[in-house]
C-alpha cells in the first residue's frame, strides 16, 4: 500500500546503533523505516515490503554489500542502495535527500 511516505530499510551489525537507526528512520513525518542486524532479516523484509532506499551500515563488508546490492536491485529495479556513514546522527537526512536527487 502506498502511504506516500519514504520507506527505508537499514542493515547493520551494531545492535545498539540499529536501535537508534530504527528511531531515526521513523522520526520524520514522511519517513517510515526498519532497521535490522542480519542479512536474513533484511532479505525477508525486502520480500514482504517495498522499500525506496536500502542503507548499508557498519559491519556490512564490501563483499556483502555487493551481494545485497545485486539482490535488491534485481528484486526491485530502481531501488536505491547506499552505504550509510556516521551512525545516524548528522548525515542521515543529507544522505537520503542526496540519494533521491541523484537516483
Amino acid at each position, binding site marked *: 500500500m502506498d502511504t506516500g511516505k519514504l520507506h527505508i530499510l537499514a542493515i*547493520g*551489525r*551494531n545492535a*545498539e*546503533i540499529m536501535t*537508534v537507526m530504527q528511531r531515526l528512520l521513523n522520526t520524520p513525518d514522511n519517513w517510515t523505516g526498519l532497521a535490522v542486524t542480519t542479512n536474513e532479516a533484511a532479505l525477508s523484509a525486502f520480500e514482504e515490503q517495498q522499500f525506496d532506499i536500502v542503507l548499508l*551500515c*557498519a*559491519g*556490512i*563488508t*564490501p563483499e556483502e554489500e555487493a551481494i545485497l546490492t545485486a539482490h535488491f536491485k534485481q528484486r526491485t529495479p530502481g531501488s536505491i542502495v547506499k*552505504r550509510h*556513514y*556516521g*551512525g*545516524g*546522527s*548528522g*548525515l542521515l*537526512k*543529507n544522505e537520503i*535527500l*542526496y540519494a533521491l*536527487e541523484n537516483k
Partner: protein
Amino acid sequence: MAKTILHKAATRGHANHGWLDSHHTFSFANYYNPERMQFGALRVLNDDIVAGSRGFDSHPHDNMEIISIPLEGALEHKDNLGNTVITKAGEIQVMSTGTGVFHSEYNANADKHASFLQIWLFPNQLNVAPRYDQATINIRERKNSLQQLISPDRNGEGTWIYQDAWFHMGRFDKNTSTEYAVRKQGNGVYLFVISGAFSVNGQLLESRDGYGIQDEQQFNITALEDNAEILVIDIPMFS
C-alpha cells in the same frame, strides 16, 4: 591547471540551538546543499560553540574518522570504550568510529563557552575496531610555520587516522609566507581560516572562510594580519 572552490564564511549553514551555535561548511543535519556535500574525503567541518555545562548527549557514530580541535575552553569526552577525558585548546581528539562507538561531549566549564572544530572524514578502511586518541600539541611550535596535527603515520607527529590525510595548523605574523607541498599524489587541500586573513595563491581568505585546491602540488600561503591562524587539510579526492 588548479581547480579551486571558495566557501565564504557567511555562506555556511547555520543552526543555533541555544546551547549549541554551529556553522556548517558542508551539508549537515538540517542544512542541506547538494553543492556542498564534501571535499573529497572531507565530509563535515562544523564550527561549534557550546554553552557552559551543556553539550551533546550520548549518541552513536560509525565508519567515520572524527577529529575535534578545541579552539577555546575545554570539552569533557565520555565514550563506551571506557574513556573519560578532558580536551582543551592545544590538544586534539580523534575517534576512529569503525564498527560503532557511543560518546558524549560536554563543555567542561560552567562559566564560559567552549568552541571547537568538529571534522569528519570518510575512512580508508570500513569496520575497523573503534579507537579513541588524544594528543597534546605545543602551540608555540606553530608560530610562523605549519605544525602537523594528524597524519596516516602511527608514529608521526600528533596523532593518526585511518585515512591518507594530513592536518596542519599555523599561526603567522603579518606578511609571513610559507609554501605548502601536497603530501600525496592526487590529494587535494582544504584550507580553513581560524582567525585573521590570508592570501593563498592570490586568493583572499578571511576568518572562517574555506578554500579547496585540487591539481596543484604546491602553493603559497601568506598571512595578511598578525596572529592569523589557519588549518590545512590534505585529503584524498574522490566523488
